[in-house]
């Protein structure tokens, strides 16, 4: 697991006819456009009078108004925010512990595979496995705690990978220098390691928060009767078409909050890391 070599600029395509790299480039740009265009369309439609017509405009904020007048989504939203905050916090702490350990031990390959295993298991299978384990084998009642557990298993590998970008680059001699100068283990961690690992810790926490906040596949199996925000949207969208404009408005708000947050994380990671 190496960090992303953002500075490498030696070129390969000199030996290729210019056509093929250009094709690759435009393939990607077209696909990125297909990923991001619907998001723009979603925001435009959410601010339109009749979102179900398919074409934006005439513009009005009346669906945002009816969203404000509708208290149904408050509960799921609060639950999602709380679960996401807890998962973010736990991810930040555990990813720091595991990330430091993995960078130190010699046979880290298998440990790493074990920790990123949930990435290889389809969400539906992992949800079903946890559901059977908790519900049928342990016989515990499902609820927010089991949703949180499912979210943690999903989010942790991402937090760990982003953490490893920082810990694998960390220069161990700094710690030895600190100890040679007479600092205690705790002081070395607080004054040397922690500040340098900070971008990774913050990113791991935010990754955990966002992965949890948007998770749906595992929540469906593990929710019992509890509802998180994506589950609520899903149920509303599936149940009645009349609810869709409200969901567009809600999804737009969530999008407009999480996109700048994500851009912030990436700015933090790429700009700070290149200086370390």
């Amino acid at each position, binding site marked *: *697991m190496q960090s*992303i*070599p953002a500075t490498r*600029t*030696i*070129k*390969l*395509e000199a030996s290729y006819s210019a056509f093929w*790299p250009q*094709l*690759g480039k435009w*393939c*990607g740009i077209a*696909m990125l456009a*297909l*990923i991001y265009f*619907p998001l723009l*369309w*979603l925001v435009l*439609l959410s601010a339109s009078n009749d*979102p179900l*017509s398919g*074409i934006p405009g005439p513009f009005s904020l009346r669906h945002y108004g009816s969203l404000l007048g509708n208290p149904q989504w408050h509960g799921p939203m609060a639950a999602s925010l709380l679960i996401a905050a807890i998962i973010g916090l736990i991810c930040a702490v555990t990813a720091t*512990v*595991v990330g430091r350990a993995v960078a*130190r*031990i010699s046979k880290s*390959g*298998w440990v790493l595979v*074990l920790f990123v*295993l949930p990435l*290889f298991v*389809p*969400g*539906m*299978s992992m949800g*079903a*496995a*946890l*559901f*059977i384990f908790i519900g*049928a*084998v342990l016989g515990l009642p499902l609820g927010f705690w089991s949703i949180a557990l499912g979210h943690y*298993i999903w989010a942790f590998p*991402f937090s760990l990978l982003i953490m*490893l970008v920082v810990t*694998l680059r960390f220069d161990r001699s700094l710690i030895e220098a600190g100890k040679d100068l007479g600092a205690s283990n705790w002081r070395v961690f607080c004054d040397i390691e922690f500040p340098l690992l900070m971008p990774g810790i913050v990113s791991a926490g935010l990754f955990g928060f966002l992965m949890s906040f*948007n998770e*749906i*596949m595992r929540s*469906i199996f593990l929710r019992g009767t509890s509802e998180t925000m994506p589950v609520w*949207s899903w149920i509303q*969208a599936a149940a009645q078409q009349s609810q*869709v404009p409200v*969901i567009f408005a809600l999804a737009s708000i*969530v*999008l407009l909050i*999480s996109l700048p947050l*994500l*851009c912030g994380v990436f700015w933090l990671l790429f700009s700070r890391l290149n200086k370390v």
Partner: protein
Amino acid sequence: MTTQTNLAEAGAGDSFLKGISRTLSRTDIAFVVILVAWIFIVVLPLVILFAFSFFTTEYYETVYKPTLDTWIGLFSSGRFEVAFRTLRLALTVTLIEFALGYPFALWLAKARMRSATRAIYLAMLTIPFFLDTSSRTIIWRAILGQAGLINTILMHTGLVAHPVEWLLYSEFSVHFGLIVALYPTMVLPAYLAISLIDDTLLEASKDLGATPRQTLTRVVLPLSLPGVLAGIVFTMGSALAAWVEPGMLGGGFVNLLSNSIESAYTALRYPVVAALSAFVILLLLVLLALMYPLMRMLGFSSLTLKS
């Protein structure tokens, strides 16, 4: 204290835990606790999932007696068709994804560009992982639907007289939705693998007189195969268990394994849920097993998992 805990762990006879305990002798106890808890909440449920698929259900109660009935019933009740459709859809999506994703990954990893530009592309590929799948998917209804953007454009330009119906609630829309949603899943692992290839190897290949095409097929492709393989497994796994896209864009016309899992879950038939979920995981393992000889052929002695 820590050493003792580690030795106790290794006592289980697990060779890799032994290896850890040796190297970990001075590491904190927290890591070991997390590792054990992780095995308990991730590995154990997956093992139980497989075990459960050998039980059956009678009168909404699970019968804990090992039998193959659930597995046999899985493919006799018309689900074979569903499994086949899911597999066909997942394979198609993965192949198209590879064709669209690998060239982009190659360009992104090896073309000359400013590091900030590359960082922006990587961020744009990563951000979709954190966005709500259902709102990203439901919006395609407004674009592909009868009164949607595409049909409006087609009608206005006079290309078609009536709205094109197969754009939404069809296998086309499910394929399309999945290909858009899973693109980063294919590109990012391939990108990582290609960017780790040393540029001197490419120059050496060129100096030795290889054509660009030979360099691609004999050097770049084999060396990036672990990443490609990871991309294929991630994409394939997500496509096999896809649930949001077929639900929202299939309009009930595209039945996949995920729908079967959901209906078995609603009917409290947990062994069927287990068997279907295990089946998806098994399909992935079979895929990996099939690709292993291919890797050997291309000159891999072992997968390099070590960092």
